[in-house]
């Protein structure tokens, strides 16, 4: 067959497509377990990281998580939704439905117990989701189970924020500022935690120590900060039903 004949070209293209396609298919299937494990570990790290120092080894992280954390799914009224797993819920995918149908959402809840994994629940870790400047951002906030108000700690994460500016939300020194802040004011209204404008380098935590709803800002990253603020108020509203229920 001639190299430039139509038949040759068609057969050649089909062959290349089939070979490349099946190769990639096999690679994707073969590596799926690794990728899933990475994603799962990432989630477990975020959950644990929101209220404690992460253990060093991967095995310890997994063990601690399995021992201390229990998950379930609630609806906007705070009622447990049976038959759904927290890990299988794609918070991002559901996000677009937020404005139109907030009541129809499934909200994953991560319950944390004491170090031996028994007794009362000490923290509830709530996943939050929103938009920064360039792409999606998300957070895990650990709320003290005693008052359902005090923030034990947070993990903030981003996909495409500007390195050194908005991407700083994933730095420990930004997340530290949220420790001990309150979500509700004394009258029980949701105030959230609001990142302020301007940054007080070196005394960020101290500067807003007396205000339970304010944290120091990130200079040069106002829009990412607004996204974070949105998560800590607007998105948090979704959990209001659950929080009120637990308060009683």
């Amino acid at each position, binding site marked *: 067959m001639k190299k430039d004949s139509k038949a040759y070209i068609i057969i050649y293209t089909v062959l290349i*497509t089939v070979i*490349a396609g099946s190769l990639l298919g096999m690679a994707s299937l073969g590596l799926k377990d*690794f990728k899933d494990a990475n994603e799962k570990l990432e989630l477990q790290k975020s959950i644990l990281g929101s209220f404690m120092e992460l253990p060093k080894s991967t095995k310890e992280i997994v063990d601690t998580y399995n021992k201390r954390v229990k998950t379930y799914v609630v609806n906007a009224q705070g009622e447990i939704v049976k038959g759904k797993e927290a890990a299988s819920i794609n918070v991002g995918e559901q996000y677009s439905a937020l404005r139109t149908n907030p009541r129809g959402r499934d909200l994953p809840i991560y319950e944390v117990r004491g170090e031996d994994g028994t007794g009362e629940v000490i923290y509830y870790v709530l996943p939050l989701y929103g938009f920064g400047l360039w792409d999606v951002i998300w957070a895990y906030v650990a709320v003290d189970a005693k008052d359902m108000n005090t923030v034990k700690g947070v993990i903030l994460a981003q*996909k495409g924020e*500007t*390195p*050194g500016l908005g991407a700083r939300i994933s730095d420990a020194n930004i997340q530290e500022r949220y420790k001990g802040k309150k979500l509700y004011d004394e009258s029980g209204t949701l105030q959230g935690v609001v990142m302020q404008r301007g940054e007080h380098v070196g005394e960020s935590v101290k500067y807003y120590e007396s205000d339970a709803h304010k944290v120091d800002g990130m200079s040069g990253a106002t829009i990412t900060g607004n996204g974070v603020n949105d998560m800590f108020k607007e998105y948090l509203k979704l959990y209001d039903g659950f929080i009120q229920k637990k308060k009683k």
Partner: protein
Amino acid sequence: MADVAETTTVEEVKPKKKEALFSKKNRRILTDPLDGDNPITVQVLGICSALAVTGQMKPSLVMGIAVVFVMVCSSVLTSLLRNTIPSRIRIVVQLAIIATFVILVNELLLAFVYDTAKGLGAFVGLIITNCIVMGRLEAFAMGNKPWPSFLDALGNAMGYAIILLMVAFVRELFGSGTLFGAKIFPDSLSTNGLMLYSSGACIVVGLLIWLQRSINGFREED
């Protein structure tokens, strides 16, 4: 570029004469792109990713390694297939080969260096459109045997990676005061925010191009 391709095609006519693996010519194929024929600073290719991923050393290193892998594999494969590829669809075939290896690399990165892979985001996928890769397939691998194609791809990819690392070195050091995430400058020294943006990278790349060309005395031909 065209010269290289022509001379080597001529050589193909007399395949009986065995050439040493590291003959002078082969060594030059490997080392030229590292310096005098560097894809970024001399040919000014692959600029987009050089600006985008060079904020820090670690992603730049991973990106460099990914490009080396993709270029070497696709060059060798293209060279092996070069006599079977119909010339009318050769670009499509080259693209399919590159895309296959890029997706493979992306899968591997997601499986084994998850954090860095997430940081690189879309840019691994965009290796497909990196002009250096396809440029070398079209200009070299289509007309040469696998071994010289291997050296050519390795040289060009390393030339690319070296510049990437140089840019990242400057940007991370002055933009964040760190190298590979380790603190170099004390906190009291304020960092240069411009270096965090791609515009800062543009300036660094520009300076590198100037430096390289003034050392080598390279001039654009009219």
